[in-house]
Protein backbone atom coordinates (compact mmCIF):
# COMPACT_ATOMS: atom_id res chain seq x y z
CA UNK A 1 0.00 0.00 0.00
CA UNK A 2 1.06 3.58 -0.55
CA UNK A 3 0.29 6.79 1.29
CA UNK A 4 -0.11 9.52 -1.30
CA UNK A 5 0.17 13.06 -0.04
CA UNK A 6 -0.68 16.01 -2.24
CA UNK A 7 -0.19 19.69 -1.41
CA UNK A 8 -2.34 21.66 -3.84
CA UNK A 9 -3.98 25.02 -4.33
CA UNK A 10 -7.12 25.05 -2.18
CA UNK A 11 -9.35 25.98 -5.10
CA UNK A 12 -8.31 22.82 -6.98
CA UNK A 13 -9.55 20.61 -4.15
CA UNK A 14 -12.95 19.90 -5.73
CA UNK A 15 -11.33 18.81 -9.02
CA UNK A 16 -8.98 16.48 -7.17
CA UNK A 17 -11.85 14.95 -5.19
CA UNK A 18 -13.83 14.35 -8.36
CA UNK A 19 -10.85 12.74 -10.10
CA UNK A 20 -10.22 10.43 -7.15
CA UNK A 21 -13.88 9.42 -6.94
CA UNK A 22 -13.82 8.48 -10.63
CA UNK A 23 -10.86 6.20 -9.91
CA UNK A 24 -12.77 4.45 -7.13
CA UNK A 25 -10.82 5.94 -4.23
CA UNK A 26 -13.37 5.84 -1.42
CA UNK A 27 -11.86 7.97 1.29
CA UNK A 28 -9.42 10.77 1.80
CA UNK A 29 -8.29 13.23 4.46
CA UNK A 30 -7.91 16.95 3.81
CA UNK A 31 -6.09 19.40 6.06
CA UNK A 32 -5.75 23.15 5.66
CA UNK A 33 -2.03 23.76 5.44
CA UNK A 34 0.32 26.70 4.89
CA UNK A 35 3.67 26.71 3.23
CA UNK A 36 5.80 27.98 0.43
CA UNK A 37 7.88 26.60 -2.39
CA UNK A 38 9.54 28.45 -5.19
CA UNK A 39 6.80 31.04 -5.49
CA UNK A 40 7.42 32.27 -1.93
CA UNK A 41 4.61 34.27 -0.33
CA UNK A 42 2.83 37.49 -1.14
CA UNK A 43 2.75 41.09 0.05
CA UNK A 44 -0.03 42.83 2.00
CA UNK A 45 -0.30 46.59 2.58
CA UNK A 46 -1.84 48.16 5.70
CA UNK A 47 -1.82 51.95 6.00
CA UNK A 48 1.08 52.08 3.59
CA UNK A 49 3.20 49.58 5.54
CA UNK A 50 4.08 46.49 3.49
CA UNK A 51 4.03 43.10 5.13
CA UNK A 52 5.58 40.02 3.48
CA UNK A 53 3.50 36.95 4.10
CA UNK A 54 5.80 33.97 3.47
CA UNK A 55 3.29 31.19 3.98
CA UNK A 56 0.42 30.80 1.54
CA UNK A 57 -2.68 28.68 2.18
CA UNK A 58 -2.67 25.15 0.71
CA UNK A 59 -4.84 22.04 0.93
CA UNK A 60 -3.07 18.88 2.05
CA UNK A 61 -4.76 15.72 0.74
CA UNK A 62 -3.85 12.27 2.02
CA UNK A 63 -5.05 8.96 0.63
CA UNK A 64 -3.90 5.38 1.20
CA UNK A 65 -4.25 3.11 -1.87
CA UNK A 66 -3.12 -0.29 -3.11
CA UNK A 67 0.27 -0.43 -4.85
CA UNK A 68 -1.29 -1.40 -8.17
CA UNK A 69 -3.29 1.81 -8.54
CA UNK A 70 -0.82 4.20 -6.89
CA UNK A 71 0.61 5.55 -10.14
CA UNK A 72 -2.84 6.12 -11.63
CA UNK A 73 -3.92 7.96 -8.51
CA UNK A 74 -0.83 10.16 -8.57
CA UNK A 75 -1.38 10.97 -12.25
CA UNK A 76 -5.04 11.80 -11.62
CA UNK A 77 -4.22 14.14 -8.73
CA UNK A 78 -1.53 15.91 -10.73
CA UNK A 79 -3.85 16.36 -13.72
CA UNK A 80 -6.66 17.72 -11.56
CA UNK A 81 -4.49 20.06 -9.52
CA UNK A 82 -2.45 21.55 -12.35
CA UNK A 83 -3.10 25.14 -13.43
CA UNK A 84 0.29 25.59 -15.09
CA UNK A 85 1.11 28.53 -12.86
CA UNK A 86 3.76 28.74 -10.16
CA UNK A 87 2.55 27.40 -6.80
CA UNK A 88 0.63 24.36 -8.07
CA UNK A 89 2.11 22.19 -5.32
CA UNK A 90 3.66 18.74 -4.93
CA UNK A 91 2.52 15.12 -4.78
CA UNK A 92 4.53 12.29 -3.23
CA UNK A 93 4.06 8.68 -2.20
CA UNK A 94 5.54 6.57 0.59
CA UNK A 95 5.10 2.86 1.40
CA UNK A 96 2.64 1.97 4.17
CA UNK A 97 3.26 -1.05 6.38
CA UNK A 98 -0.25 -1.66 7.60
CA UNK A 99 -3.72 -0.17 7.87
CA UNK A 100 -6.44 -1.09 10.37
CA UNK A 101 -10.13 -0.19 10.09
CA UNK A 102 -11.01 0.84 13.61
CA UNK A 103 -14.65 -0.30 13.53
CA UNK A 104 -14.09 -3.90 12.38
CA UNK A 105 -10.44 -4.56 13.10
CA UNK A 106 -9.77 -5.54 9.43
CA UNK A 107 -6.09 -5.24 8.48
CA UNK A 108 -4.16 -4.54 5.30
CA UNK A 109 -5.76 -3.80 1.89
CA UNK A 110 -9.15 -5.02 3.20
CA UNK A 111 -9.19 -2.02 5.51
CA UNK A 112 -8.96 0.49 2.65
Amino acid at each position, binding site marked *: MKLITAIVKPYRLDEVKTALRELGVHGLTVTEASGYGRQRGHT*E*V*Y*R*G*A*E*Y*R*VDLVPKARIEVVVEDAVADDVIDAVVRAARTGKIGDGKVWAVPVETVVRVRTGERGPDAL
Partner: protein
Amino acid sequence: MTLAAPHADTGDTAWLLAATALVLLMTPGLALFYGGMVRTKSVLNMLMMSFVSIALVTVVWLAAGYSLAFGDDLGGGLLGGLEHAGMRGLGPDSVHGTVPTVLFATFQLTFAIITAALISGAVADRTKFSAWLVFVPVWTLLVYVPVTHWVWGPGGWITDRLGALDFAGGLPVEITSGASGLALCLVLGPRLGFKKDAMRPHNLPMVILGAGLLWFGWFGFNAGSALGANGLAAAAFLNTLAAGCTGLLGWLFVEQRRDGHPTTLGAASGAVAGLVAITPSCGTVSLLGALVVGLAAGVVCSYAVSWKFKLDYDDSLDVVGVHLVGGIIGTVLIGLFADKAMTGGAQGLFHGGGLAPLGRQLLAVAAVAAYAFSVTYGLGKLLDKALGLRASEEQEYTGLDLTVHAETAYDHGVLGHGAPVSHSAPLTAQKVKTQA
Protein backbone atom coordinates in the same frame (compact mmCIF):
# COMPACT_ATOMS: atom_id res chain seq x y z
CA MET B 1 -43.01 94.17 34.66
CA THR B 2 -41.91 90.59 35.25
CA LEU B 3 -38.70 88.97 34.09
CA ALA B 4 -39.43 85.66 32.36
CA ALA B 5 -37.27 82.92 33.86
CA PRO B 6 -35.08 81.31 31.17
CA HIS B 7 -36.54 78.05 30.04
CA ALA B 8 -35.42 75.30 27.72
CA ASP B 9 -36.51 75.23 24.09
CA THR B 10 -38.20 71.88 23.38
CA GLY B 11 -36.85 71.51 19.83
CA ASP B 12 -33.27 72.27 20.86
CA THR B 13 -33.57 69.96 23.84
CA ALA B 14 -34.97 67.12 21.74
CA TRP B 15 -32.11 67.37 19.24
CA LEU B 16 -29.43 67.55 21.93
CA LEU B 17 -30.88 64.52 23.74
CA ALA B 18 -30.57 62.54 20.50
CA ALA B 19 -27.13 64.00 19.73
CA THR B 20 -25.84 63.01 23.16
CA ALA B 21 -26.86 59.40 22.60
CA LEU B 22 -25.19 59.53 19.16
CA VAL B 23 -21.89 60.74 20.63
CA LEU B 24 -21.95 58.08 23.35
CA LEU B 25 -22.24 55.42 20.62
CA MET B 26 -18.97 56.67 19.13
CA THR B 27 -16.95 55.13 21.96
CA PRO B 28 -18.12 51.53 21.39
CA GLY B 29 -17.66 52.35 17.68
CA LEU B 30 -14.09 53.43 18.38
CA ALA B 31 -13.57 50.21 20.35
CA LEU B 32 -14.50 48.20 17.23
CA PHE B 33 -12.44 50.47 14.95
CA TYR B 34 -9.38 49.92 17.14
CA GLY B 35 -10.21 46.32 18.04
CA GLY B 36 -10.21 45.21 14.41
CA MET B 37 -6.76 46.70 13.89
CA VAL B 38 -4.96 44.74 16.62
CA ARG B 39 -4.02 41.05 16.61
CA THR B 40 -6.38 38.35 17.93
CA LYS B 41 -4.49 37.91 21.19
CA SER B 42 -5.28 41.36 22.62
CA VAL B 43 -8.50 42.43 20.92
CA LEU B 44 -10.66 42.17 24.04
CA ASN B 45 -8.19 44.32 25.97
CA MET B 46 -8.37 46.91 23.18
CA LEU B 47 -12.18 46.93 23.33
CA MET B 48 -12.08 47.15 27.12
CA MET B 49 -9.77 50.17 27.15
CA SER B 50 -12.44 52.15 25.31
CA PHE B 51 -15.48 50.59 26.94
CA VAL B 52 -14.26 51.05 30.50
CA SER B 53 -13.54 54.71 29.74
CA ILE B 54 -17.30 55.30 29.52
CA ALA B 55 -17.65 54.38 33.19
CA LEU B 56 -14.42 55.94 34.46
CA VAL B 57 -14.86 59.31 32.80
CA THR B 58 -18.54 59.53 33.71
CA VAL B 59 -17.79 59.16 37.42
CA VAL B 60 -14.97 61.70 37.46
CA TRP B 61 -16.88 64.13 35.22
CA LEU B 62 -19.93 64.19 37.48
CA ALA B 63 -17.77 64.40 40.61
CA ALA B 64 -15.63 67.35 39.53
CA GLY B 65 -14.81 67.42 35.81
CA TYR B 66 -17.89 69.25 34.62
CA SER B 67 -17.59 71.93 37.26
CA LEU B 68 -13.87 72.52 36.63
CA ALA B 69 -14.50 72.76 32.88
CA PHE B 70 -17.72 74.77 32.84
CA GLY B 71 -17.92 76.40 36.28
CA ASP B 72 -17.25 80.12 36.67
CA ASP B 73 -13.71 81.04 35.71
CA LEU B 74 -11.26 81.12 38.62
CA GLY B 75 -9.10 83.70 36.84
CA GLY B 76 -7.06 84.00 33.68
CA GLY B 77 -9.44 81.81 31.71
CA LEU B 78 -7.54 78.73 32.89
CA LEU B 79 -9.95 76.67 35.00
CA GLY B 80 -13.50 76.71 36.33
CA GLY B 81 -14.53 76.57 39.97
CA LEU B 82 -15.88 73.66 42.00
CA GLU B 83 -19.31 75.17 42.66
CA HIS B 84 -21.01 72.41 40.64
CA ALA B 85 -18.92 69.49 41.97
CA GLY B 86 -21.18 66.46 42.21
CA MET B 87 -23.55 68.40 39.91
CA ARG B 88 -24.51 70.49 42.93
CA GLY B 89 -27.15 73.13 42.27
CA LEU B 90 -28.12 71.75 38.86
CA GLY B 91 -31.71 70.57 38.80
CA PRO B 92 -34.11 69.87 35.96
CA ASP B 93 -34.93 73.60 35.80
CA SER B 94 -31.34 74.82 35.31
CA VAL B 95 -30.86 76.11 31.78
CA HIS B 96 -27.72 76.51 29.67
CA GLY B 97 -28.58 78.61 26.61
CA THR B 98 -31.77 76.97 25.40
CA VAL B 99 -31.23 73.48 26.81
CA PRO B 100 -31.30 72.03 30.33
CA THR B 101 -27.88 72.35 32.00
CA VAL B 102 -27.85 68.68 32.97
CA LEU B 103 -28.29 67.81 29.29
CA PHE B 104 -25.48 70.17 28.27
CA ALA B 105 -23.26 68.58 30.93
CA THR B 106 -24.12 65.08 29.69
CA PHE B 107 -23.47 66.05 26.06
CA GLN B 108 -20.07 67.41 27.07
CA LEU B 109 -19.42 64.27 29.12
CA THR B 110 -19.69 62.10 26.00
CA PHE B 111 -16.90 64.20 24.44
CA ALA B 112 -14.66 63.67 27.47
CA ILE B 113 -15.28 59.90 27.28
CA ILE B 114 -14.24 59.43 23.67
CA THR B 115 -11.21 61.70 24.04
CA ALA B 116 -9.76 59.52 26.78
CA ALA B 117 -10.63 56.37 24.83
CA LEU B 118 -8.87 57.71 21.72
CA ILE B 119 -5.51 57.62 23.50
CA SER B 120 -5.70 53.84 23.88
CA GLY B 121 -4.93 53.36 20.19
CA ALA B 122 -1.41 54.72 20.70
CA VAL B 123 -0.61 52.26 23.47
CA ALA B 124 -2.35 49.12 22.20
CA ASP B 125 -1.32 45.59 23.17
CA ARG B 126 1.09 46.48 25.99
CA THR B 127 -0.51 48.73 28.61
CA LYS B 128 -1.10 47.38 32.09
CA PHE B 129 -4.89 47.43 32.50
CA SER B 130 -4.84 48.45 36.16
CA ALA B 131 -2.65 51.44 35.28
CA TRP B 132 -5.08 52.45 32.51
CA LEU B 133 -7.89 52.47 35.11
CA VAL B 134 -5.92 55.08 37.05
CA PHE B 135 -4.63 56.99 34.03
CA VAL B 136 -8.04 57.71 32.47
CA PRO B 137 -9.71 59.60 35.34
CA VAL B 138 -6.54 61.45 36.36
CA TRP B 139 -5.78 62.41 32.76
CA THR B 140 -9.35 63.62 32.28
CA LEU B 141 -9.00 66.03 35.21
CA LEU B 142 -5.45 67.17 34.44
CA VAL B 143 -5.59 67.50 30.65
CA TYR B 144 -9.06 67.26 29.12
CA VAL B 145 -10.86 69.43 31.66
CA PRO B 146 -8.50 72.46 31.59
CA VAL B 147 -8.25 72.49 27.78
CA THR B 148 -12.04 72.29 27.53
CA HIS B 149 -12.33 75.26 29.87
CA TRP B 150 -9.84 77.22 27.75
CA VAL B 151 -11.92 76.60 24.63
CA TRP B 152 -15.56 76.39 25.74
CA GLY B 153 -15.68 77.30 29.44
CA PRO B 154 -17.00 80.68 30.59
CA GLY B 155 -14.11 83.14 30.14
CA GLY B 156 -11.80 80.48 28.68
CA TRP B 157 -8.66 82.15 27.33
CA ILE B 158 -8.48 80.54 23.90
CA THR B 159 -11.95 81.63 22.84
CA ASP B 160 -12.56 84.74 24.95
CA ARG B 161 -9.09 86.31 25.03
CA LEU B 162 -7.18 84.91 22.05
CA GLY B 163 -10.27 84.68 19.86
CA ALA B 164 -9.39 81.40 18.18
CA LEU B 165 -12.27 79.29 16.82
CA ASP B 166 -13.07 75.65 17.51
CA PHE B 167 -16.63 74.56 16.83
CA ALA B 168 -16.77 70.93 17.98
CA GLY B 169 -13.43 70.02 19.50
CA GLY B 170 -10.35 70.07 17.26
CA LEU B 171 -8.41 71.37 20.27
CA PRO B 172 -9.90 69.62 23.33
CA VAL B 173 -10.65 66.32 21.57
CA GLU B 174 -8.46 65.68 18.52
CA ILE B 175 -5.23 67.55 19.29
CA THR B 176 -5.39 66.75 23.00
CA SER B 177 -5.85 63.01 22.41
CA GLY B 178 -3.25 62.94 19.64
CA ALA B 179 -0.54 64.79 21.58
CA SER B 180 -1.32 62.73 24.70
CA GLY B 181 -1.16 59.50 22.70
CA LEU B 182 2.27 60.49 21.43
CA ALA B 183 3.48 61.25 24.96
CA LEU B 184 2.14 58.01 26.42
CA CYS B 185 3.53 55.77 23.67
CA LEU B 186 6.95 57.39 24.18
CA VAL B 187 6.78 56.64 27.91
CA LEU B 188 5.71 53.03 27.25
CA GLY B 189 8.10 52.24 24.43
CA PRO B 190 7.30 50.15 21.37
CA ARG B 191 5.47 46.81 21.31
CA LEU B 192 7.63 43.70 21.32
CA GLY B 193 8.58 43.09 17.71
CA PHE B 194 7.75 46.61 16.48
CA LYS B 195 9.14 47.02 12.94
CA LYS B 196 10.16 43.32 12.92
CA ASP B 197 7.00 41.25 13.21
CA ALA B 198 3.96 41.52 11.01
CA MET B 199 1.26 43.15 13.16
CA ARG B 200 -1.58 42.90 10.73
CA PRO B 201 -5.11 44.04 11.57
CA HIS B 202 -6.98 40.86 12.50
CA ASN B 203 -10.49 41.89 11.44
CA LEU B 204 -11.02 44.59 8.83
CA PRO B 205 -14.82 44.15 8.66
CA MET B 206 -14.81 45.11 12.36
CA VAL B 207 -12.77 48.22 11.47
CA ILE B 208 -15.32 49.23 8.83
CA LEU B 209 -18.20 48.64 11.25
CA GLY B 210 -16.42 50.80 13.82
CA ALA B 211 -15.73 53.55 11.29
CA GLY B 212 -19.40 53.48 10.27
CA LEU B 213 -20.56 53.84 13.88
CA LEU B 214 -18.06 56.66 14.40
CA TRP B 215 -19.34 58.49 11.33
CA PHE B 216 -22.97 58.02 12.45
CA GLY B 217 -22.15 59.31 15.94
CA TRP B 218 -20.10 62.17 14.53
CA PHE B 219 -23.30 63.83 13.29
CA GLY B 220 -24.30 64.16 16.94
CA PHE B 221 -20.81 65.33 17.85
CA ASN B 222 -20.61 68.08 15.22
CA ALA B 223 -24.19 69.07 14.53
CA GLY B 224 -25.00 68.70 18.22
CA SER B 225 -22.31 71.27 18.98
CA ALA B 226 -24.63 73.93 17.57
CA LEU B 227 -26.50 73.26 20.85
CA GLY B 228 -29.76 73.80 19.01
CA ALA B 229 -31.97 72.41 16.26
CA ASN B 230 -31.26 75.09 13.69
CA GLY B 231 -29.64 76.02 10.39
CA LEU B 232 -26.13 76.03 11.84
CA ALA B 233 -26.63 72.46 13.04
CA ALA B 234 -27.81 71.50 9.57
CA ALA B 235 -24.82 73.15 7.89
CA ALA B 236 -22.43 71.46 10.33
CA PHE B 237 -24.19 68.15 9.60
CA LEU B 238 -23.68 68.49 5.85
CA ASN B 239 -20.07 69.62 6.30
CA THR B 240 -19.47 66.51 8.41
CA LEU B 241 -20.75 64.24 5.65
CA ALA B 242 -18.82 66.10 2.95
CA ALA B 243 -15.45 66.11 4.73
CA GLY B 244 -15.68 62.42 5.61
CA CYS B 245 -16.23 61.69 1.91
CA THR B 246 -13.33 63.77 0.59
CA GLY B 247 -11.09 62.36 3.33
CA LEU B 248 -11.97 58.84 2.22
CA LEU B 249 -11.36 59.63 -1.46
CA GLY B 250 -8.13 61.51 -0.75
CA TRP B 251 -6.63 58.63 1.22
CA LEU B 252 -7.64 56.06 -1.43
CA PHE B 253 -6.20 58.25 -4.19
CA VAL B 254 -2.82 58.34 -2.45
CA GLU B 255 -2.87 54.58 -1.86
CA GLN B 256 -3.71 53.80 -5.47
CA ARG B 257 -0.83 55.98 -6.70
CA ARG B 258 1.69 55.07 -4.00
CA ASP B 259 0.96 51.42 -3.18
CA GLY B 260 -1.03 50.28 -6.20
CA HIS B 261 -4.08 49.15 -4.23
CA PRO B 262 -7.04 51.00 -2.69
CA THR B 263 -7.46 49.29 0.71
CA THR B 264 -10.39 48.83 3.06
CA LEU B 265 -8.32 50.08 5.98
CA GLY B 266 -7.38 53.11 3.89
CA ALA B 267 -11.03 53.91 3.19
CA ALA B 268 -11.94 53.65 6.89
CA SER B 269 -8.89 55.68 7.93
CA GLY B 270 -9.50 58.35 5.30
CA ALA B 271 -13.11 58.84 6.35
CA VAL B 272 -12.05 59.16 9.99
CA ALA B 273 -9.23 61.59 9.07
CA GLY B 274 -11.70 63.79 7.21
CA LEU B 275 -14.13 63.67 10.13
CA VAL B 276 -11.37 64.55 12.60
CA ALA B 277 -10.36 67.58 10.55
CA ILE B 278 -13.89 68.87 10.05
CA THR B 279 -14.62 68.66 13.80
CA PRO B 280 -13.26 72.12 14.67
CA SER B 281 -14.35 73.63 11.37
CA CYS B 282 -17.79 72.10 10.67
CA GLY B 283 -19.53 75.17 12.10
CA THR B 284 -17.08 77.77 10.83
CA VAL B 285 -16.42 76.99 7.15
CA SER B 286 -18.60 76.85 4.04
CA LEU B 287 -19.37 73.60 2.22
CA LEU B 288 -16.51 74.25 -0.21
CA GLY B 289 -14.21 74.78 2.76
CA ALA B 290 -15.37 71.49 4.28
CA LEU B 291 -14.62 69.61 1.06
CA VAL B 292 -11.08 71.03 1.05
CA VAL B 293 -10.53 70.37 4.77
CA GLY B 294 -11.56 66.71 4.38
CA LEU B 295 -9.44 66.19 1.27
CA ALA B 296 -6.38 67.79 2.86
CA ALA B 297 -6.72 65.54 5.91
CA GLY B 298 -7.21 62.38 3.82
CA VAL B 299 -4.11 63.07 1.74
CA VAL B 300 -1.79 64.35 4.49
CA CYS B 301 -2.79 61.75 7.10
CA SER B 302 -2.20 58.91 4.63
CA TYR B 303 1.45 59.94 4.71
CA ALA B 304 1.56 60.93 8.38
CA VAL B 305 0.77 57.37 9.53
CA SER B 306 4.17 56.16 8.30
CA TRP B 307 6.21 58.77 10.18
CA LYS B 308 6.30 56.44 13.19
CA PHE B 309 8.46 53.94 11.32
CA LYS B 310 11.01 56.61 10.40
CA LEU B 311 11.00 58.45 13.73
CA ASP B 312 10.74 55.26 15.79
CA TYR B 313 7.73 55.78 18.05
CA ASP B 314 5.15 53.01 18.23
CA ASP B 315 1.88 54.90 17.95
CA SER B 316 0.29 51.53 17.30
CA LEU B 317 -3.02 52.52 15.67
CA ASP B 318 -2.00 55.99 14.45
CA VAL B 319 -3.61 58.33 16.95
CA VAL B 320 -0.88 60.82 16.07
CA GLY B 321 -1.08 60.31 12.32
CA VAL B 322 -4.85 60.66 12.21
CA HIS B 323 -6.06 62.63 15.26
CA LEU B 324 -3.15 64.95 15.99
CA VAL B 325 -2.32 65.67 12.35
CA GLY B 326 -5.98 65.74 11.23
CA GLY B 327 -6.94 67.91 14.21
CA ILE B 328 -4.18 70.39 13.41
CA ILE B 329 -5.19 70.54 9.73
CA GLY B 330 -8.84 71.21 10.58
CA THR B 331 -8.09 73.76 13.30
CA VAL B 332 -5.49 75.67 11.28
CA LEU B 333 -7.54 75.75 8.06
CA ILE B 334 -10.23 77.70 9.94
CA GLY B 335 -7.77 80.57 9.65
CA LEU B 336 -8.12 80.34 5.87
CA PHE B 337 -11.72 79.24 5.34
CA ALA B 338 -13.71 80.82 8.22
CA ASP B 339 -16.86 82.23 6.68
CA LYS B 340 -18.99 85.01 8.16
CA ALA B 341 -22.18 83.20 7.15
CA MET B 342 -21.20 80.41 9.57
CA THR B 343 -19.27 82.23 12.31
CA GLY B 344 -21.51 85.28 12.45
CA GLY B 345 -18.49 87.59 12.20
CA ALA B 346 -15.00 86.14 11.95
CA GLN B 347 -13.53 85.72 8.47
CA GLY B 348 -10.55 83.65 7.33
CA LEU B 349 -7.78 84.72 4.98
CA PHE B 350 -9.63 83.57 1.86
CA HIS B 351 -12.68 85.64 2.84
CA GLY B 352 -10.66 88.81 3.40
CA GLY B 353 -10.00 88.31 7.12
CA GLY B 354 -6.23 88.81 6.75
CA LEU B 355 -3.50 86.75 8.38
CA ALA B 356 -4.47 87.43 12.00
CA PRO B 357 -7.06 84.59 12.28
CA LEU B 358 -4.47 82.12 10.98
CA GLY B 359 -2.03 83.28 13.65
CA ARG B 360 -4.65 82.86 16.38
CA GLN B 361 -5.44 79.32 15.23
CA LEU B 362 -1.74 78.39 15.13
CA LEU B 363 -1.15 79.77 18.60
CA ALA B 364 -4.09 77.84 20.03
CA VAL B 365 -2.88 74.62 18.38
CA ALA B 366 0.66 75.07 19.71
CA ALA B 367 -0.51 75.85 23.24
CA VAL B 368 -2.91 72.90 23.47
CA ALA B 369 -0.51 70.40 21.87
CA ALA B 370 2.36 71.49 24.13
CA TYR B 371 0.20 71.39 27.28
CA ALA B 372 -1.36 68.00 26.52
CA PHE B 373 1.98 66.45 25.53
CA SER B 374 3.95 67.66 28.52
CA VAL B 375 1.35 66.98 31.22
CA THR B 376 0.59 63.52 29.81
CA TYR B 377 4.30 62.72 29.56
CA GLY B 378 4.78 63.72 33.21
CA LEU B 379 1.71 61.79 34.33
CA GLY B 380 2.84 58.73 32.37
CA LYS B 381 6.29 58.80 33.95
CA LEU B 382 4.78 59.22 37.40
CA LEU B 383 2.35 56.33 36.98
CA ASP B 384 5.11 54.18 35.52
CA LYS B 385 7.17 54.76 38.65
CA ALA B 386 4.30 54.33 41.07
CA LEU B 387 2.33 51.45 39.49
CA GLY B 388 4.19 50.26 36.43
CA LEU B 389 2.53 51.30 33.19
CA ARG B 390 3.51 48.36 31.05
CA ALA B 391 2.31 44.76 31.08
CA SER B 392 4.97 42.08 31.60
CA GLU B 393 6.78 40.70 28.57
CA GLU B 394 5.14 37.34 29.05
CA GLN B 395 1.67 38.90 29.19
CA GLU B 396 2.36 40.95 26.11
CA TYR B 397 3.73 37.97 24.20
CA THR B 398 0.89 35.65 25.21
CA GLY B 399 -1.71 38.36 24.72
CA LEU B 400 -3.51 40.53 27.25
CA ASP B 401 -6.88 38.86 26.61
CA LEU B 402 -5.90 35.60 28.24
CA THR B 403 -3.44 36.92 30.82
CA VAL B 404 -5.40 39.96 32.06
CA HIS B 405 -9.03 39.21 31.33
CA ALA B 406 -8.99 35.37 31.38
CA GLU B 407 -10.85 35.32 28.07
CA THR B 408 -10.18 34.80 24.39
CA ALA B 409 -12.09 36.65 21.70
CA TYR B 410 -12.55 33.80 19.27
CA ASP B 411 -13.31 30.12 19.77
CA HIS B 412 -10.95 28.44 17.34
CA GLY B 413 -12.18 25.02 18.43
CA VAL B 414 -9.10 24.32 20.51
CA LEU B 415 -9.00 20.70 21.71
CA GLY B 416 -9.12 20.22 25.45
CA HIS B 417 -11.92 22.61 26.38
CA GLY B 418 -14.12 20.90 28.94
CA ALA B 419 -16.99 21.81 31.21
CA PRO B 420 -16.56 24.84 33.50
CA VAL B 421 -14.19 24.09 36.35
CA SER B 422 -16.36 26.05 38.74
CA HIS B 423 -19.63 27.76 38.03
CA SER B 424 -22.20 28.99 40.48
CA ALA B 425 -25.34 28.43 38.40
CA PRO B 426 -25.32 24.59 38.15
CA LEU B 427 -24.50 24.30 41.85
CA THR B 428 -27.40 26.53 42.80
CA ALA B 429 -29.75 24.60 40.55
CA GLN B 430 -28.63 21.38 42.17
CA LYS B 431 -29.20 22.76 45.62
CA VAL B 432 -32.74 23.85 44.78
CA LYS B 433 -33.47 20.41 43.39
CA THR B 434 -32.19 18.67 46.51
CA GLN B 435 -34.27 20.87 48.76
CA ALA B 436 -37.39 20.23 46.73
